[in-house]
């Protein structure tokens, strides 16, 4: 059972226990799998007071009796590692924190931390990799971030591994004592302490990940690395490795949950982890497309993928980049033809979904059908892929209805309204999915040594209904604009999509991406509704109507084909 642990003083208001208890109440009332909460610290009479406070809340009283909420007073120091090691996540809701010793102790035991974005905690926790930093004094944000670990305990395991790698050497007291002695000795000798130019925490963690992978990379390529450069642009670390006479592009696939863990339904039977073996198998398969990097070596056990050399300095105009990206999408689509019995089953499931009334069932059935179809077509068991944009609308509507607390109120109201608008716009489109890149954006376009372009980061590749890649590309372009003007981008999608259904599905994908992004942010405790998103969701219906019911003149312009 997932376990959330609070360790700290119980009567010091700066430690934020009150905020933690508010978040706990929210979590207990939410649509989540069962979890355990452990509160540790303070004198026995202080712990008894906390227990009394919890006993006044109906749901907490029951869970105290059932042993799912435990309030402990202070424990001996050597018991703490046992507690941390048995926790899915440790919570530090402090209002002020100079350092955050509990955070480091927990990370050194391989446990991630959800903490307030305050004081020293910001330098100790690497947001998204070793835990989450949430807004101070915000129980909703805290609950949302903790819910991630309850929904998917594998998130805790992945972040815990990162936390251990990050903290072990960096905070080891022996090394710290040496740094103190160094300062003392320099002062005694009158030597000025050089100002250290230490890389940021994220860069340091990546450095550790890369160094940890180095022996396997060297074994695979059969020679020693003379240097490397971090070029990561996603949670999967990647680097350019230099050997004596060769250069490679290396990716370190980790066993980790999908970014949108909040949308993975508890108990969903499909694989919900990015498995390194699957990712490598997929990369090998996709590399038959000329624009996809060639796989040189791979180690499935460690998730290390060594590809032909790629550089992140490809100079292209926006239009050239667009042409390359859409070309990549075409090449990837041509790799497979989606047919056979699993394809028929997928279509039958869609037909059933069109008349089904139970939303959760609809989403689960489609998720399973696409998982089986992916396996039949690609021979890999992919983690959850949001496959059909209209089904995603159903998933979003359900999530927003069941978890109204998990997003800011103004965002929730607007997002629900936009989802409702799109659901009512057209009946479910019964189309087969196509193999697509899944995350077409500028950073994924790289340069081969001969100057040609290659499209990397295929972690999100999979089967998608409608022109997912086109919509994602224009969404990425759009998101770079300061102001949200969906009409222009919707018109672009309209021009590139080939059929009427595709035009509509592309427009739905385009609406969904910013909502996904916002949910991803909210679920990590980043609790600010961005004006850009609010503006997008407000302007979208009008832009959609303009594009889909254009005047005669603009209709001609919209349908005019464009070469790619």
């Amino acid at each position, binding site marked *: 059972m997932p376990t959330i642990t609070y360790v*700290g*003083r119980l009567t010091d208001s*700066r430690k934020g226990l009150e905020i933690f208890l508010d978040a706990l109440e929210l979590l207990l009332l939410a649509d989540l799998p069962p979890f355990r909460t452990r509160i*540790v*610290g*303070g*004198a026995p009479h202080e712990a008894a007071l906390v227990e009394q406070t919890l006993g006044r809340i109906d749901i907490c009283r029951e869970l105290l009796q059932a*042993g799912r909420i*435990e309030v*402990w007073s*202070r*424990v*001996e*120091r050597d*018991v*703490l*590692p*046992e*507690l*941390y*090691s*048995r926790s899915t996540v440790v919570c530090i809701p402090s*209002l*002020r924190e*100079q*350092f*955050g*010793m*509990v955070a*480091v*102790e927990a990370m*050194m*035991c391989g446990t991630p931390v959800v903490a307030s974005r305050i*004081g*020293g905690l*910001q*330098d*100790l926790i690497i947001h998204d990799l070793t835990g989450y930093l949430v807004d101070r004094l915000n129980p909703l944000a805290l609950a949302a971030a903790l819910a991630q670990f309850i929904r998917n305990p594998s998130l805790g395991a992945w972040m815990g591994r990162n936390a*251990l790698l990050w*903290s*072990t050497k*960096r*905070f*080891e*007291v*022996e*090394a*710290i*004592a*040496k*740094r*103190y*002695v160094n*300062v*003392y000795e320099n*002062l*005694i000798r009158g030597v*000025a*302490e050089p*100002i250290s130019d230490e890389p940021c925490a994220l860069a340091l963690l990546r450095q550790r990940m890369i160094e940890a992978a180095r022996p396997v990379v060297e074994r695979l390529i059969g020679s020693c690395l003379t240097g490397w450069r971090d070029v990561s642009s996603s949670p999967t670390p990647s680097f350019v490795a230099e050997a004596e006479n060769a250069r490679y592009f290396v990716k370190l696939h980790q066993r980790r949950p999908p970014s949108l863990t909040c949308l993975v339904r508890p108990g969903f039977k499909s694989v919900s982890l990015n498995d390194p073996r699957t990712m490598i198998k997929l990369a090998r398969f996709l590399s038959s497309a000329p624009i996809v990097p060639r796989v040189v070596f791979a180690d499935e056990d460690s998730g290390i993928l060594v590809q032909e050399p790629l550089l992140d300095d490809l100079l292209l105009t926006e239009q050239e980049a667009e042409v390359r990206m859409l070309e990549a999408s075409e090449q990837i689509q041509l790799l497979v033809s989606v047919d056979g019995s699993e394809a028929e089953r997928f279509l039958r499931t869609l037909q059933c979904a069109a008349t089904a009334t139970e939303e959760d069932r609809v989403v689960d059935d489609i998720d399973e059908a696409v998982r089986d179809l992916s396996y039949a077509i690609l021979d890999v068991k992919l983690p959850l892929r949001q496959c059909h944009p209209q089904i995603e609308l159903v998933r979003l509507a359900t999530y927003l209805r069941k978890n109204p607390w998990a997003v800011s109120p103004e965002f929730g109201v607007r997002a629900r309204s936009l989802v409702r608008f799109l659901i009512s716009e057209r009946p479910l489109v019964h189309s087969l999915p196509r193999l697509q890149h899944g995350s077409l954006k500028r950073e994924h376009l790289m340069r081969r040594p001969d100057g040609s372009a290659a499209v990397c980061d295929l972690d999100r590749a999979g089967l998608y209904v409608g022109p997912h890649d086109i919509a994602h590309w224009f969404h990425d372009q759009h998101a770079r604009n300061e102001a949200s003007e969906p009409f222009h981008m919707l018109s672009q999608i309209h021009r590139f999509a080939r059929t009427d259904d595709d035009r509509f599905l592309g427009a739905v994908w385009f609406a969904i991406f910013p909502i996904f992004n916002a949910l991803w942010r909210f679920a990590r405790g980043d609790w600010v509704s961005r004006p850009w998103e609010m503006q997008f969701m407000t302007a979208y219906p009008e832009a959609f109507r303009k594009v889909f019911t254009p005047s005669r003149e603009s209709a001609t312009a919209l349908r005019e084909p464009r070469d790619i």
Partner: protein
Amino acid sequence: MRILLLTLTDDPFDPAGVGRFGGSHAFFFDIARQFVRMGHSVTIVTRLNDPGKPRFQSLGPLCHIYRIVIGPPLEIDHHSLGYLREDLIVSVRSLPLEGRFDIVQTSNWLSGAVGLALVPGTADRHVHHVLSLGRVRRALGEEPSSNDQVRDEWECRIFASADALICVTEDEQNAIERLYPDVAKRQITTIPYGINSDVFSPRPGDAHDYLRRSSNRFT
């Protein structure tokens, strides 16, 4: 090297997790032990906050701890200890400390204020561990205290005179640079607290039995 560790508001031997004692207590204990392991001599001076504690302890040939009797021998609000500064200086100076120290390492503004008076008489160099900043407290809107002004004056004097200032995070270093603009950047070094990895490391297997045994609780 001979190190004098002044932690007048916190006894590093008090257990963390009770009352106001947090993780920094554990750190000062751990770092002192590391210094001793590295062959340095460490003398810890703190204020007696419990009549049951010994006033002097020798923890092996390289480590001694003095608990000076200033104010009531009880745990009292450490922010209100400012008025005891002069008494603390006299008391530390009158301790039977043998020879000079290479370094006086202080933490918290009150220890820092006492530390200033010990250089150059008792120690050659003063290194101050910031521990907390009065202006950060106020910037976050915490309840004002009658000692805020005295604390602020002393913090400025310590930051101007100490040979080195140690911050535990970049955030703290940024806060000093932002809120105390007169502090020279070259004085500041950032060194995080250290944790003993022999104690804090992932534990294998199911430990419910261990927890039950160690804590006398059912889990």
